[in-house]
């Protein structure tokens, strides 16, 4: 048994721990430590969504805005420019990667929370994959370009809205519920703006909603 402080061995470890305790602690100090450590832990372990919300917001604003600019003058309407659509897809991929990176670096918390995070992202990816499958089915069934355009613009926002609404059933938060509800409304109502207007509605109403969430994230985390 090694009895040198700070090294392995039962008795040696007890000595090391006792030496590391320092001067005896009173009840008042203990209470203060509990309060301070609890606050520090609460702040340090809180999930931060500012980066993800900002990237999603800019993605919608710039990506959907770019598509709106390319389709608004089309006569006859033939749908989004492939380059602009590729930009939106890239921004979407960047958003997912940003979310994954945030999750990875999130204060080192593992266990059930890590499993939930992975499932959450998987559900978003599966939703988007399903969306593309449905779009393919619509094209295969002969749906017109205006119909495809409305679907392409509304469906991703609808998927995102439903994701936030179901997330808030697991961990209720009024702001996340509000965001989910707003995105569902934007997806549903935006379609009535037509195959051109739906992209503009998504860009402004959807993009700005995310950016507002990013701007108020520090205050929302405290609530």
């Amino acid at each position, binding site marked *: 048994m090694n009895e040198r402080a*700070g090294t392995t061995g*039962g008795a040696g*470890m*007890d000595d*090391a*721990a006792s030496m*590391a*305790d*320092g001067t005896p*602690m*009173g*009840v*008042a*100090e*203990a*209470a*203060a*430590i*509990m*309060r301070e*450590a*609890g606050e*520090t*832990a*609460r702040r*340090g*372990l809180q999930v931060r969504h500012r980066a993800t919300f900002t990237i999603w917001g800019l993605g919608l604003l710039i990506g959907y805005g770019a598509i709106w600019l390319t389709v608004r003058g089309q006569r006859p309407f033939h749908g989004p420019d492939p380059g602009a659509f590729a930009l939106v897809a890239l921004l979407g991929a960047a958003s997912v990667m940003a979310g994954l990176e945030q999750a990875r670096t999130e*204060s*080192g*918390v*593992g*266990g*059930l*929370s*890590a499993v939930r995070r992975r499932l959450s992202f998987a559900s978003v990816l599966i939703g988007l994959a399903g969306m593309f499958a449905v779009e393919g089915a619509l094209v295969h069934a002969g749906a017109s370009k205006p119909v495809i355009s409305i679907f392409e613009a509304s469906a991703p926002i609808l998927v995102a809205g439903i994701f936030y609404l179901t997330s808030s059933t697991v961990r209720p938060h009024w702001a996340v519920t509000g965001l989910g509800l707003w995105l569902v409304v934007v997806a549903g109502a935006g379609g009535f703006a037509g195959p051109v207007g739906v992209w503009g509605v998504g860009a402004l109403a959807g993009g700005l909603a995310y950016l507002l969430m990013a701007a108020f994230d520090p205050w929302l985390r405290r609530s």
Partner: protein
Amino acid sequence: MSEDGLDPVIHAPARLRIMVTLAALPEGDDLTFTGLQDLIGLTPGNLITHLRKLEDAGYVTTHKNGTGVTARTSVALSHVGRDALERYTTVLRQLLDSVYSETELQLGKPWLKNGQGFVDAAERLGVDCAF
């Protein structure tokens, strides 16, 4: 009740910080060693020392994920540890309540428990009653 009622394993500044920090995690979650170190502010050696004492008491569990360079150690509060911290908190509250009662007797005046007067009086006696 005296301070002897406080669990000596928990009743040390560093270990109390560790326990409270881990208790902030939801059940089923754990925290990496470096994550805990960042929150607590201890040196790695110091943190290991205190974690081992808590682990010997059955209050925390540690496990290592991965191998080689990517290996990382995670720490979590055990059920035994949560119960022990709850008991510690109860005893601490009772001790603080008894200090409050002594304050009333010494000053000879009735104080509302949440009143500023209580805080002022306690501070004059050198007791921090923010808990």
